[in-house]
C-alpha cells in the first residue's frame, strides 16, 4: 500500500488547544497567558485546581475517558511521593493528535503536566514519546530545555522513548516499561489502585488531557464547559483520514455531528461508513453519520470516541476487507502474554480474510461470532476486546455485505486499495493490497 501522508499544517480549525502561533515559550505565553504554579507545596491551591478540573467534567483523552481529577485523588490518598507520566505514545496508527499537539504546543502539555505534579505533590514528570516519533520528541525535548534556560521549569522533566508498538501506549504496559524495561500490560483487578514504578505511585495522563488541564488551571471550569455538551464538555482533538481532501488533526467541540467534522476535513463523496475511535473502535453506518461526536451518543450508535479517530470509508471500498486488514495488524500487535489474544486474534483475522475474499463457507459467520465471544474479556488488557468490538461492528454495519461474501459473492471493493494507515514495518503494510 501507499503510505498515506497526513498534512497537518494550516488545516486545524484552532479553537483552544491549537490556538498557538508558535512553539517557543514566548509565543506560548503570548497566546495562552502566564500560568502561576506555586513552587512550594500549597494544599489550598492544589484543592482549588483539583476541584476546578473535577467541576470541568474533563474526561481523559487517551481512549478510556476516565475522569482526570479522580486519578489525582487516588494518588493523594496514598501518601507516597508520586510521578506524573505523560502518555504521548499514540500507538494508534491512524492517530496524529498527540504528536501534533507536542509539535505545535509542547509547552501547553508541559504546563498541564506541571499542574498535575504540583497538585499531587510529584517532583518529577516523565514524558513518553514513541521511539519512532522523532518530530514530537525533538519538539518536546527542545521545550523542556527552553523552560530550564528560562528558569520556568518547576520540577524535573525528562523525555523517554519507549518502543513504538501499539500496546506500549496501554498505561499498565507503559508503566511496566518504565519500571522494568518490558512493555507488557499487567492484570489490574481494581483500577482505582494507582500503578507503581519502583514502589512509587504514578499518574498516567494522555498528552491532550494535560493540555486541557493547562487551560482549566488558567481559566477555570466554566470557560471549559462553554464548549461541548453538558455531558461531554469542552473541545477535543480529532484525527480525520480516509476519503477526505484534507486529512489531519482538527479541534472540535464535543457533540459536533460526525458528518460536520468530515465536511470540515473536505468530505466530497459518498461513504460506505466511517471507522470511529481507532483500530479497537467501531464502524458507523452511513445513516448514522449525523451522530454527535461525544461518548454517550456514539455508544448508543454502537461506536466509540476512543482516541478521537474518524476514518472515512469511501463508497466502493469494502468494510469487511478493511476490518480483516486491521484485525491482522492488531493480531501482530499483541504483547504475547494471554492465550486468547495470542491464538484467538490470528484465527479471527484469518476468518475475516477468508470472508473478505468471498470463499464460500456456510459456517463462517457463525464461527467468527463464536470466536469473538471466546476472546472477549479474557486478556490482561483490553487489546483483544477492542479488536472484537471492531469485528462485531463490521458484521453488524456491513451485514448485507457479510452475507453476500459468505455466500461466495464478494463485493468489488475487496480489490480497492486500503484507506487505513499501517506502520511501514508491519506485516499488513508489506502485504500487496
Amino acid at each position, binding site marked *: 500500500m501507499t503510505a498515506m501522508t497526513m498534512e497537518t499544517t494550516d488545516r486545524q480549525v484552532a479553537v483552544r488547544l491549537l490556538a498557538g502561533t508558535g512553539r517557543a515559550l514566548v509565543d506560548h505565553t503570548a497566546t495562552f497567558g502566564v500560568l502561576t504554579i506555586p513552587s512550594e507545596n500549597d494544599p489550598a491551591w492544589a484543592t482549588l485546581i483539583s476541584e476546578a478540573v473535577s467541576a470541568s467534567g474533563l474526561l481523559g483523552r487517551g481512549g478510556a475517558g476516565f475522569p482526570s481529577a479522580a486519578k489525582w485523588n487516588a494518588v493523594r490518598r496514598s501518601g507516597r511521593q508520586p510521578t506524573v507520566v505523560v502518555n504521548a505514545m499514540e500507538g494508534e496508527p491512524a492517530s496524529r493528535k498527540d504528536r501534533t499537539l507536542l509539535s505545535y504546543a509542547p509547552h501547553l502539555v508541559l504546563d498541564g503536566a506541571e499542574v498535575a505534579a504540583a497538585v499531587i505533590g510529584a517532583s518529577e514528570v516523565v514524558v513518553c514519546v514513541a521511539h519512532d516519533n522523532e518530530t514530537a520528541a525533538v519538539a518536546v525535548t527542545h521545550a523542556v530545555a527552553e523552560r530550564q534556560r528560562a528558569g520556568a521549569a518547576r520540577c524535573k522533566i525528562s523525555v523517554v522513548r519507549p518502543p513504538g508498538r501499539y500496546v506500549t501506549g496501554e498505561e499498565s504496559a507503559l508503566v511496566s516499561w518504565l519500571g522494568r524495561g518490558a512493555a507488557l500490560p499487567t*492484570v489490574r483487578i481494581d483500577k482505582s489502585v494507582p500503578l507503581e514504578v519502583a514502589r512509587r505511585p504514578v499518574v498516567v495522563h494522555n498528552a491532550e488531557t494535560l493540555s486541557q488541564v493547562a487551560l482549566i488551571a488558567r481559566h477555570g471550569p466554566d470557560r471549559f464547559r462553554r464548549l461541548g455538551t453538558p455531558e461531554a464538555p469542552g473541545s477535543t482533538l480529532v484525527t480525520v483520514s480516509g476519503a477526505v481532501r484534507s486529512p489531519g488533526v482538527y479541534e472540535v467541540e464535543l457533540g459536533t455531528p460526525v458528518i460536520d467534522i468530515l465536511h470540515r476535513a473536505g468530505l466530497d463523496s459518498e461513504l460506505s461508513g466511517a471507522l470511529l475511535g481507532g483500530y479497537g473502535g467501531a464502524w458507523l453506518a452511513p445513516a448514522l453519520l449525523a451522530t454527535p461526536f461525544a461518548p454517550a451518543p456514539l455508544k448508543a450508535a454502537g461506536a466509540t470516541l476512543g482516541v478521537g479517530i474518524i476514518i472515512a470509508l469511501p463508497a466502493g471500498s469494502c468494510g469487511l476487507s478493511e476490518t480483516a486488514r486491521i484485525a491482522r495488524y492488531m493480531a501482530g500487535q499483541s504483547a504475547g502474554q*494471554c492465550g*486468547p489474544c495470542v*491464538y484467538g486474534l490470528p*484465527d479471527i483475522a484469518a476468518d475475516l480474510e477468508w470472508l473478505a475474499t468471498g470463499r464460500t463457507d456456510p459456517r463462517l459467520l457463525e464461527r467468527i461470532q463464536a470466536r469473538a465471544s*471466546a476472546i472477549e474479556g*479474557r*486478556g*490482561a488488557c483490553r487489546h483483544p476486546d477492542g479488536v472484537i468490538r471492531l469485528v462485531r461492528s463490521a458484521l453488524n454495519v456491513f451485514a448485507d455485505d457479510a452475507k453476500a461474501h459468505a455466500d461466495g459473492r464478494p463485493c468489488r471493493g475487496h480489490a480497492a486499495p486500503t484507506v487505513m494507515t499501517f506502520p511501514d514495518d508491519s506485516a499488513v503494510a508489506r502485504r500487496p493490497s
Partner: protein
Amino acid sequence: MITRHRVALRARVDPVACDAYGYCAEILPERVTLDEWGYPIIDGAPLDADLVDLATRAAAECPRRAFLLERVASDR
C-alpha cells in the same frame, strides 16, 4: 440486628501466567471449560461448598500457579 457475612470463594485465572496446561478443567469441570486454544474459561460465580476442595486442588496443581481462588462476600 447482627448480619453475618459468610465468605465464599470464587475461581479466577491469571491470563498472563496461564499456559493452557488444562489441569483445572480436568479437576473442576463443573466450573472450567477450555476454549478451542486450550485456555480455561472460568465460571466466576461463588463456589458451592462441595466444590471448594476440588477448586483448592486445581489451584495447587496448576503448574503456572495461574488458577486462583479469591474471597468474595456472600450472603448465601
